[in-house]
């Protein structure tokens, strides 16, 4: 424990704050927020491999638009932490070209909404290239940044892109929830020889989660393509990713009081989708609720529902309940925004519907 504390104190000043405020839930559990988890993962991977470099708007002198890359410019210098002009298409393409020719870039988008200006490079020159060149040219690049809704940022800053990127063969798409997910998946993504789209969530950056010693180890990583069962249960399976996992866990607590034992699955990986874990869970519980923040049509939940119908139709005791964001661009007014996004009550009601308890269909504004 002491050795790891000393390591932390040397590497990044902000982690000293974590050491001082660590609580003792268990002997070895520390608290770390998602921002620190991402920062430490980037720091360790950059020091392990000199070909890894960061590129994006405000990643250097501003210490990161959301402070995720804090301290890295001071540690690694401006050649490895590159502040770019506001040119998403240009610098994303530059990252892809650098990956073609041998480096391992980590390209940050201030949010994935801005990545739409660069989506041609993410899909056409990154995702498809290993296939088009038949293995000649691989693209070991990571595209990371916040995805989905924040608080009151309006329609053009709030879209969730998991479904869009999840449809593309040649991409790996990850969506971490806790700090352990953030650290392990980002390390796995940086080490991976393929293009990875890493969808973070702005509202999760400040949330603290307990992390074990194993997670803090520099060699730690999580396998890509494996979902995690956050809470086991036997009555209904709730499948979610990113922030919705937190909501689903809260919903599970509420459902427990009503006698429904929900199983919560944290997808972690949108592509490849861990169909086997989801199917195995539904075969045990016979009921499925999918939760996502993004638009409902052609969403992640739609794909999961189709997968279950194809593979485990006979095991379903109720229709699949899909919860998604409202089918509207995100409104600005706070009460409308709350209505447009899934809330804990929505998950509770959907789970009860799946268990054939009678509940009102819509929430009050």
């Amino acid at each position, binding site marked *: 424990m002491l050795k790891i504390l000393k390591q932390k104190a040397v590497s990044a000043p902000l982690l000293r704050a974590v050491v001082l405020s660590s609580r003792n839930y268990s002997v070895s559990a520390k608290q770390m927020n998602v921002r620190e988890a991402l920062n430490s993962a980037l720091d360790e991977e950059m020091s392990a491999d*000199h*070909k890894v*470099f960061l590129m994006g708007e405000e990643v250097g002198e501003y210490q990161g638009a959301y402070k995720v890359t804090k301290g890295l410019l001071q540690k690694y210098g401006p*050649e*490895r932490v590159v502040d*770019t*002009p506001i*040119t998403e*298409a*240009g*610098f*994303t*393409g*530059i*990252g*892809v*070209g*650098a*990956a*073609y*020719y*041998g*480096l391992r870039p980590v390209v940050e988008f201030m949010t994935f909404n801005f990545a739409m200006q660069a989506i*041609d*490079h993410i899909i*056409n*020159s990154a995702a498809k*290239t*290993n*296939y*088009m*060149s*038949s*293995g*000649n*040219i*691989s*693209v*070991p690049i990571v595209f990371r940044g916040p995805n989905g809704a924040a608080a009151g940022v309006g329609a053009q800053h709030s879209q969730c892109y998991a479904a869009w990127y999840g449809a593309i*063969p*040649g991409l*790996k798409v990850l969506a971490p929830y806790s700090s352990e997910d953030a650290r392990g998946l980002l390390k796995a993504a940086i080490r*991976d*020889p*393929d293009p990875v789209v890493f969808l973070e969530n702005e509202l999760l950056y400040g949330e603290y989660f307990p992390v074990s010693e194993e997670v803090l180890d520099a060699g730690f990583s999580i*396998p*890509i*393509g*494996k979902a995690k069962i956050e809470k086991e249960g036997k009555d209904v399976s709730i499948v979610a990713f990113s922030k919705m996992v937190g909501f689903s866990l809260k919903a599970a607590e509420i459902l427990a009081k009503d006698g429904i034992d929900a199983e919560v699955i944290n997808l972690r*990986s949108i592509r*490849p*989708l*861990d*169909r*086997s*874990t989801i*199917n*195995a869970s539904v075969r045990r519980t016979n009921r499925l609720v999918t939760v996502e923040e993004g638009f409902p049509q052609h969403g992640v939940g739609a794909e999961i529902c189709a997968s279950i119908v194809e593979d485990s139709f006979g095991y379903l005791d109720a229709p699949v309940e899909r919860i998604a964001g409202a089918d509207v661009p995100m409104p600005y007014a706070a009460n409308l925004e709350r209505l447009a996004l899934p809330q804990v009550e929505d998950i509770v009601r959907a789970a009860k519907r799946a268990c054939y308890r009678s509940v009102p269909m819509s929430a009050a504004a």
Partner: protein
Amino acid sequence: MACSAAAKILHNPLLISSSRSAEKSDSCCKILGPSSFLGSTSLSKKLVSVNKGVSRASRRSANVVAVSSDVVKEKKLKSNSAAPSLLITKEEGLVLYEDMILGRVFEDMCAQMYYRGKMFGFVHLYNGQEAVSTGFIKLLKKEDCVVSTYRDHVHALSKGVPAREVMSELFGKTTGCCRGQGGSMHMFSKEHNVLGGFAFIGEGIPVATGAAFTSKYKREVLKEDCDEVTLAFFGDGTCNNGQFFECLNMAALWKLPIVFVVENNLWAIGMSHLRATSDPQIWKKGPAFGMPGVHVDGMDVLKVREVANEAIARARRGEGPTLVECETYRFRGHSLADPDELRDPAEKAHYATRDPITALKKYILENNLASEAELKAIEKKIDEVVEDAVEFADESPVPARSQLLENVFADPRGFGIGPDGKYRCEDPKFTEGTAQV
């Protein structure tokens, strides 16, 4: 303002007349002198003495010079020796000739094969533009990179990809350079550093800039001995695209070792360059971003080679990017599916008289660099190479069924974890195409 005053002095003497002929006034060259190629100090010293109060920023832009290809002609005229100074040796001449003949014969063969149904989809031919590809790429080392557009067969051939592999790729056979998975528009070769082959115009420019970024990174961060240069080839239509400007900015900002080569053939499918562009002189866009912009006659391989030499040397020395506009022409339509009805036959006839291969042949014979017989032997050899490539491609097998799922990921575990809890790629039936994916 001081800056704009400096700009005026710069551009007036160097202003290229709007006529696209090779004849330019000699007066503009005399001001430059033979050593003022691409922004040398002689011109900038003159400017500094005139504008004593010039700030640092404008002096930096004063170093940026737009040059006409007449400097090359000027060099030749100023030579004092009794014998004319030659631009190339015999060996170089034969290499250039062979490369251009290979490009021309290969593309003609592609047209034949397309109409016989052996090639399909989109095929874009390079006839008429060979001087640009040969002039630039024959100056590169193997480690230097080339990034191109969909009109990439000849760039791949010039860079060293064997004709057999390119032809097989076009036929969609498994012996192609991308095993038939890329096709005409996506020629990739790791061995010869051909980084594509892109269908979207402007897509290759940031990728090329990234490869140049890697060269600089290798030198400065990884401390490797690396002076590799990247060439980005693209057309006149691309020069109106946003990504082009983004990359001019970043390449100049970070002084990346890249040469932006514009193959201005005046037409983007059926859209004339003059109808699409507010200021048709593309070389001018270089100085706006702080790099030299050069215009050269792209139908003359020797002129292209001179300019290319200087631009590539500049990049290798670490002085940053250059924008080279090559005035060229494609003899065929945009693609083999293009009926090519909008171009004026008189224009086509004019450029046909400026065929780069005929011009080089004339130069070689007039300067007694080689005999007619040697050139004929080269043509015969290339005919055989291309015929052999066609035979090879014809006889090659089509890809096996299992190839469909291969190479989606470099790490095949990217297909995820199967129902039995193990990685899907570990299932022996995985690449047979019968496994569940």
